[in-house]
């Protein structure tokens, strides 16, 4: 189960960031500008996702049936997780002619994702870097919630306690934002960007506060009391989500 959840997080919380990366990072935007290709990542007897690159954009689909130009197959969740740790390659089932693309261009794009999400010690963390890092970190966390609700044993006990509604995470004054919609029946879906009429909001006063939280250096209780983190609306959605988010480091570093 741990491998299964990890693999879903790798695909649906980490890899999904390719959807937003080009809008944040000019290097990634340049890389994909003329791509016209769709990639399916499927794990045997489990989950699958599609990345559809066209017109300089990347669209992510979860569990889509659409046919794709390349199918990458993983024999098990562990196999997929190993690829994310650079220790294994997928088995291409379709799109052999695209192997060169995968090895070179696609790898470069994944490299950009890693550059921002798992920065090497020597990476210069300037303002531009921090902005992208924050957006991707926020997305990863929010995208992870629905997956944790399905497979993490603690989050599964929390899941039935969510009433229907939406929870938006925002960094003032200019974003990033991400949100999650709960259906009130133990399920949720997450999205980048702001929600329409969110039922609850967690708002970080500025990016420094949000970055400190991501870095694990913020006392979040003090931050709530000083309004550095503002909570609004149906606070139980926030409370439950926070407990679930505390589970994330068990699966993703």
């Amino acid at each position, binding site marked *: 189960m741990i491998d299964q959840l990890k693999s879903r997080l790798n695909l649906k919380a980490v890899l999904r960031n390719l959807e937003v990366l080009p809008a944040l990072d000019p290097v990634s935007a340049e890389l994909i500008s003329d791509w016209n290709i769709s990639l399916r990542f499927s794990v045997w007897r489990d989950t699958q996702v599609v990345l559809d690159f066209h017109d300089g954009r990347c669209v992510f689909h979860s569990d889509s049936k659409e046919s794709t130009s390349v199918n990458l197959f993983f024999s098990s969740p562990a196999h997929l997780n190993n690829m994310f740790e650079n220790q294994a390659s997928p088995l291409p089932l379709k799109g052999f002619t695209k192997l060169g693309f995968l090895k070179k261009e696609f790898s470069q794009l994944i490299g950009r994702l890693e550059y921002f999400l798992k920065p090497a010690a020597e990476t210069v963390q300037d303002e531009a870097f921090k902005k992208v890092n924050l957006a991707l970190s926020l997305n990863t966390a929010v995208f992870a919630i629905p997956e944790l609700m399905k497979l993490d*044993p*603690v*989050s*599964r*006990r*929390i899941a039935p*306690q969510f009433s229907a*509604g939406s929870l938006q995470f925002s960094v003032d004054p200019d974003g990033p934002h991400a949100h999650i919609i709960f259906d009130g029946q133990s399920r949720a879906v997450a999205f980048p960007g702001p929600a329409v*009429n*969110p*039922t*609850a*909001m967690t708002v970080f006063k500025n990016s420094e506060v949000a970055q400190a939280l991501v870095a694990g250096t913020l*006392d979040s*209780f*003090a931050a*709530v*009391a*000083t*309004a550095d983190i*503002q*909570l*609004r*609306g*149906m*606070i*139980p959605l926030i*409370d*439950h989500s926070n*407990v679930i988010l*505390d589970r994330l480091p068990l699966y993703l570093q």
Partner: protein
Amino acid sequence: MNIYQYDKSKEWFQRAVKVIPCGVYGHFSPAPYAPVEAYPFFSDKAEGARFWDVDGNEFIDYMCAYGPMVLGYHHPEVEAAFQKQISISDANTVASPRMVELAEFLCEMIPVADWAFFARNGADVTNMAVMVARAATGRDKIIAIKGGYHGTSPWMQAPGHHGTIADDHDHLFRIPWNDLEALDRILAEHGSQIAAFMASPFHHPIFEDNALPADGYWQQVVDKMHENGSVVIVDDVRAGFRLHMGGSNEHYGFKPDMIAFSKAIANGHALSALVGTDDLKVDAAKVFHTGSFWYCAGSFAAALACLNILKAEDGPARMRMLGEKLTGGLRDLASSHGYTMIVSGEPALPYLRLADDETLMLQQAWCGECTRRGAFFTSHHNWFLSTAHTEDDIEKTLQIADEAFKAVKKQFGS
């Protein structure tokens, strides 16, 4: 109208958070105060229906210490009884006669009570009630209500939350309030294992409208549980002595087997009580449950004074009258500003919510605007009236509320 600032509260919070987990934790935690800037965190002074925060801001207090204050802070007769008792004995090596007097008093005043057992906090006696029910029935499982609060012991907490484990909830079924079919289903499937049904006399969850018992609900619960050989426990920790001096069940016309009281019982002095019927007395005697401070005698003396005064003055009737004035006034005021105020629960401890916004953000903003003008309102929890509130206080509160409506209208539009 003066808009309050909380600089000293913030300073104290900064000191607190260095040495206390969370700074201010539990039900006083700033987390549900949205916007948090509208609320004070620390106070050094309280009198009657008011408290003053460390910045010197004065509040008409509609949370009443979350229930314990019922006659007004520093009620002279209660304080005199308390002082008199502690001047002769408080902590001691053997029990106090005041404890016996209080048990006699409760057995006299509360129809269900043939015995009384004392502790300090609400959860001490909700736990005791469950242990007694288990001892009496030889069964494990408890039925409670979704969203019902009985304290913070692991089994009472929301599953999955920090510090709890999956097994904590193995013997608990949570069913929706007022849902007899759900009760029937549990009884049909697990009847022979059910020790007790426990609920508050009316449903007072947080972040949600409160709900009174449907006609006949409680009597049917009692009948079904008794037919099943199970025990009925009313958790009257929050509502106790605000609806009826004989227990809130008397207000609704039914008789459970045990009732848990705390909060208002001693006007702010630490005390809780479990009362029950004769049938359960031997089982209650067999259960071992105690605490270092459970015999401190000052609280017994304070409770005797508090309950005598509440009874003599018909406190529940006064709090109902004041609650009706307050909630009726706020409802009319909301409507004059183009809003709809939904009032639920009981007038003596009402829950209010502006219907024009499902997210509660409007309600939160309005409660915040009231608070920073001197009427302390929370947006997530029912409020409390006390006998110390006056009609003048309510008049002043309505003026504050009026200003607050104007302020939120500016912020949200109508």
